[in-house]
């Protein structure tokens, strides 16, 4: 339905003339006597509604249904309540329906908020916003010519008001007006007015006439009209199990009829599937589709493939079955509905569910899926990788959940802040350094790093946050001094892993990458980096030197190459590659509890091999925060070393142990091999 169709504006004009105070001549029993109190009491006489009462309550019902299904963009004028009933003794002239019709036309000329919005948005194309409306006039007309007189009146009024509106910024010309004249009269009388289908009186005005008896006939008529005017359709939910009021342990099955937009039946309409519905009640015009209440119920964590959701309104809102159903749904439960089929196959086509106090009829897809039998995600790119940080990303998702911000918020420069943009910014920050697999990261496998990692991604840090980051760093320094093992992955590696000091360098490097990714967030982030740089194990020059020393003992070219990569302070990916290529020592994984996502990790062996012990003292010396003394002596040593030539033996030494009489070996080698290309043993 187009937004600015006739249904955008509806004006009810209910005749307030003295005749409307006439009884509709349908009795209502209101004094229903309860059993066991009836003896000797005569119930009070039934009463009957006036034409006015019937008209008002039918109009209200029209509005109720419409507001339930279209809470927005459809407007009505109905200021009925305060008017009061017509006075049968009043002068018929002074409360003529004509005044009402004139007022209705006036109202249609007024620009609605939605029209105003649309006009403002389109700027120079503002004239493309339509202005159409509908007038529903409930009256008691005297004859067909009286009806024509009313139509002429509307016609003329529109003409005049359009002239006025043409010269006004606050009014819009009426392009199309639908006049629905309902002539109502007491039951038992003959109608003096004949029905007439919709007829075009002028390019602007169409009119139709309905002649209806008052009471429930009028209510039924307006119910049919609201369906026509707003493209509604009816669904009857059948087989609703309901506890009996009297016998709480038995239940009977009930039916409830709901109205909703007819799109919810699109599948039936298109396929011409008439086996459902066609159930006619209260006259031949009323069609309803019957759907069966379906057990078991669905749970809320299931995501159904739903092709549409439409607001509903119960036809008989106050009846016990209706209110039982709606209360059941409003309490947060959902009901699947199935099409009754003769063949016995079960086709679930709809679902009733409430969202925040509004009930929707969901249309579920019941046809074959064109996406059936897709290749599994494990067969595609990245499908063979088994150590994704699934739990960590789950945590990440929960931190990046969305929440509505209904109050407008403003940035420092006074411009409006869009919450969704904030959400995108946060995702950007949180993913600046986010390794996808466990074997690509060390720091995210360490519980000790969590306090830093969780706050460093923040846009702004508190002093306490900074303090926590610093504590984390000191803690890591402490771990390094104590030579605690690190959870470095052994996935895809053979033999020995990297040595302990090497591991710590990898860890520090990774941590620095993480922190560096955020230094531009604020000064406090900068402070964390300063702390990290000051505390981390070794200044690069010394590392370089140590490396050179070690290179000689490394036998594999690969590790030498990646060692260089590392020294050049390449981005983190490079250092990851280093880790992947270096052989690892399995025992380094001793602290299994810090590895969150890899239950497959090898068990830590009980004994440490002796080889690592050899290196201990050397490693120990270089670990931990620099003391002033060590800084000083390093400096002196470096300065001194420039002044003399280093002994060749010491230069070539491994762990300060130099092999003596190397030349003898080389000579021996010469004897055995022609080219003299022998390595040390």
């Amino acid at each position, binding site marked *: 339905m187009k937004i600015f169709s006739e249904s955008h504006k509806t004006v009810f004009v209910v005749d307030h003339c003295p005749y409307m105070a006439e009884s509709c001549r349908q009795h*209502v029993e*209101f004094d*229903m006597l*309860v059993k066991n109190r009836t003896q000797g*009491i005569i119930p*009070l006489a039934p*009463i009957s509604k006036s034409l006015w009462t019937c008209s008002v309550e039918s109009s*209200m*019902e029209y509005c*109720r249904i419409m507001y339930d299904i279209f809470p927005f963009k459809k407007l009505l004028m109905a200021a009925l*309540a*305060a008017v*009061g009933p017509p006075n049968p003794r009043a002068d018929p002239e002074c409360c003529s329906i004509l005044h009402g019709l004139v007022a209705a036309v006036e109202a249609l000329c007024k620009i609605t908020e939605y029209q105003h919005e649309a006009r403002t948005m*389109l700027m120079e194309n503002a004239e493309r916003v339509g202005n159409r409306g509908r007038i529903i006039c409930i009256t008691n007309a005297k004859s067909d010519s009286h009806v024509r007189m009313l139509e002429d009146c509307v016609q003329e009024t529109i003409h005049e008001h359009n002239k006025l509106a043409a010269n006004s910024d606050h009014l819009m010309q009426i392009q199309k007006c639908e006049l629905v004249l309902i002539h109502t009269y007491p039951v038992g009388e003959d109608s003096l007015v004949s029905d007439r289908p919709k007829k075009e009186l002028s390019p602007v005005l169409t009119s139709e006439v309905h002649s209806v008896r008052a009471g429930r006939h009028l209510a039924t008529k307006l119910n049919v009209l609201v369906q026509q005017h707003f493209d509604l359709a009816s669904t009857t939910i059948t087989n609703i199990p309901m506890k009996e009021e009297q016998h709480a342990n038995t239940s009977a099955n009930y039916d409830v009829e709901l109205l909703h937009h007819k799109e919810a039946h*699109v599948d039936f309409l*298109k*396929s*011409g599937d008439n086996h459902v519905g066609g159930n006619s009640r209260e006259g031949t015009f009323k069609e309803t589709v019957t759907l069966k209440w379906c057990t078991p119920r669905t749970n*809320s*964590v299931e995501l159904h*493939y739903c*092709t549409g*959701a439409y607001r509903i*309104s119960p036809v008989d*809102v*106050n009846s016990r079955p209706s209110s039982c159903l709606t209360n059941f749904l*409003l309490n947060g439960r959902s009901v699947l509905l199935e099409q009754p089929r003769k063949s016995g196959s079960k086709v679930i086509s709809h*679902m009733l569910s409430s969202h*925040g*106090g509004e*009930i929707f009829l969901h249309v579920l897809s019941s046809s074959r899926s*064109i996406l059936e*039998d*897709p290749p599994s*995600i494990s067969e*595609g*790119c*990245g499908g063979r*990788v088994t150590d*994704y940080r*699934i*739990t960590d*990303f*789950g945590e990440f*998702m*929960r931190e*990046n*959940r*969305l*929440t*509505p*911000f209904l109050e407008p918020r403003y940035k420092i420069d006074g411009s409006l802040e869009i*919450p969704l943009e904030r959400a*995108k910014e*946060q995702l950007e*920050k949180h*993913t600046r350094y*986010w390794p*996808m697999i466990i074997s690509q990261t060390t720091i995210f496998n360490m519980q000790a790093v969590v306090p830093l990692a969780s706050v460093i991604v*923040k846009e702004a840090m508190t002093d306490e946050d900074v303090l926590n980051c610093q504590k984390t760093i000191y803690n890591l320094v402490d771990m390094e001094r104590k030579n605690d093992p690190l959870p470095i992955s052994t996935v895809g590696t053979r033999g020995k892993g990297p040595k302990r000091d090497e591991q710590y360098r990898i860890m520090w490097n990774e941590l620095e990458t993480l922190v560096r990714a955020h230094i531009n967030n604020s000064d406090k982030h900068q402070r964390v980096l300063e702390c990290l740089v000051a505390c981390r194990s070794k200044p690069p020059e010394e590392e370089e030197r140590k490396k050179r020393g070690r290179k000689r003992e490394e036998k594999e070219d690969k590790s030498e190459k990646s060692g260089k990569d590392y020294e050049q302070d390449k981005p983190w990916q490079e250092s990851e590659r280093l880790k992947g290529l270096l052989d690892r020592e399995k025992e380094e994984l001793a602290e299994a509890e810090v590895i969150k996502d890899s239950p497959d990790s090898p068990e830590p062996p009980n004994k440490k091999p002796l080889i690592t012990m050899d290196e201990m003292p050397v490693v120990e010396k270089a670990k931990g925060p620099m003391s002033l003394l060590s800084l000083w002596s390093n400096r002196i040593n470096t300065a001194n070393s420039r002044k003399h030539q280093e002994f060749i033996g010491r230069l070539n030494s491994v762990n300060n142990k130099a092999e003596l009489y190397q030349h003898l070996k080389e000579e021996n080698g010469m004897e055995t091999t022609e080219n003299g290309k022998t390595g040390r043993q």
Partner: protein
Amino acid sequence: MPTVVVMDVSLSMTRPVSVEGSEEYQRKHLAVHGLTMLFEHMATNYKLEFTALVVFSSLWELMVPFTRDYNTLQEALSNMDDYDKTCLESALLGVCNIVQQEWGAAIPCQVVLVTDGCLGIGRGSLRHSLATHNQRSESNRFPLPFPFPSKLYVMCMANLEELQSTDSLDCLERLIDLNNGEGQIFTIDGPLCLKNVQSMFGKLIDLAYTPFHAVLKCGHLTSDVQVFPRPEPFIIDEEIDPIPKAINTDLEIVGFVDIADISSPPVLSRHLVLPIALNREGDEVGPGITDDTEDENSANQIAGKIPNFCVLLHGSLKVEGMVAVVQLGPEWYGMLYSQADSKKKSNLMMSLFEPGPEPLPWLGKMAQLGPISDAKENPYGDDDNKSPFPLQPKNKRSYAQNVTVWIKPSGLQTDVQKILRNARKLPEKTQTFYKELNRLRKAALAFGFLDLLKGVADMLERECTLLPDTAHPDAAFQLTHAAQQLKVASTGASEYAAYDHNVAPLQTDFPSTGTERM
């Protein structure tokens, strides 16, 4: 979008085509050549598409039901016989039935009609169908427009001049018009030969069968993906500016929501999101796309071992029971989630919401969704025990409040009974009694139903006379007071008759749980 290939096998398709060289070609052969090219393309680049093959002359036959097995389709092409005359209407009717039986009326389908532009003679010819189009009843309506969303592509084994020499082109254009303009006519450029047929089918492939590639982004985490089936541009049904909207090739995740909160939302369409490995030439290695040759298998294996963001995202969405909200364009959103096909197989899926600032009323305006860290306190609670969703609408719907409807007598009777029930339990139920009384009073005044007020007043007075001896004395006072107030209201005379006035309980001095009796 499933495809139905509708192939004309009437005699006119066997007309020879003069081609240089020794071999003699018929139009049929050109058609087979073109379709072979289409099937080969689909087998490599569009493997998940379901395709069916229908042949027709004066009758029609479903040669191959919907399948992804392109070898079967290919084989069927070589097993076609020649039949009598062209009768398009019955063939289109056949397509209607086949598609609806298989997919229902909601799934969009592409119909590729291959014909030579000879549209038959006499009854059942397209000319005859179109001429009688206006004289049809609902029972024998013309099959177009198709009852399902569709595109009708007409592949003519003829060039434009040939079609224009008769009224064939006009008829075919009418056909597209009848399908609400959804579709296109392709003709051969220049002389009829294999090369020109290829270029005609090439145009169809470009238009309808190029895979949709996009980049899925979540901050700095990205993955190249193919979205299948291709998301089609969406036209918003609105009188202001009906411009078709197409989705971005950057699919940007904006945040996450629990499945229970998003709550089976209505969607326009569903799509598989398949990670692909693009190499420099722009060729791809991915699921459902490559041939089973050994080279590509090993390429697949390598790609399988490189960590991919899609797999990580899918795994976490599945474990956490969440969806990722993804922005598809300006004011257009969708969601990513894990969809299980069976116990073993599951996949990353994307559903598109209807374009607009507020596709789901229970989430509110999408632009107003922000990160939880901006909220004063975590809206999900410290123990993850609450949720900011669903958003409550400003006004309650009629069924969520206590509305008064008296159209059926039972509605009125229930309301009167409620007052009566409480009247008998005075003074304990004084509050409820007056609440119900005021509700009835207000509704009666609004409806101008003054007789009811009088009636209920009479009833309360009667109840007063029926009070048992054991009744609390306050009961009689309250009943009399209430009855009198209703009578005042029914005359409409004094200020007590005003709509906004509320009847208050009579102030009495009795102790509320009085045991003393006078």
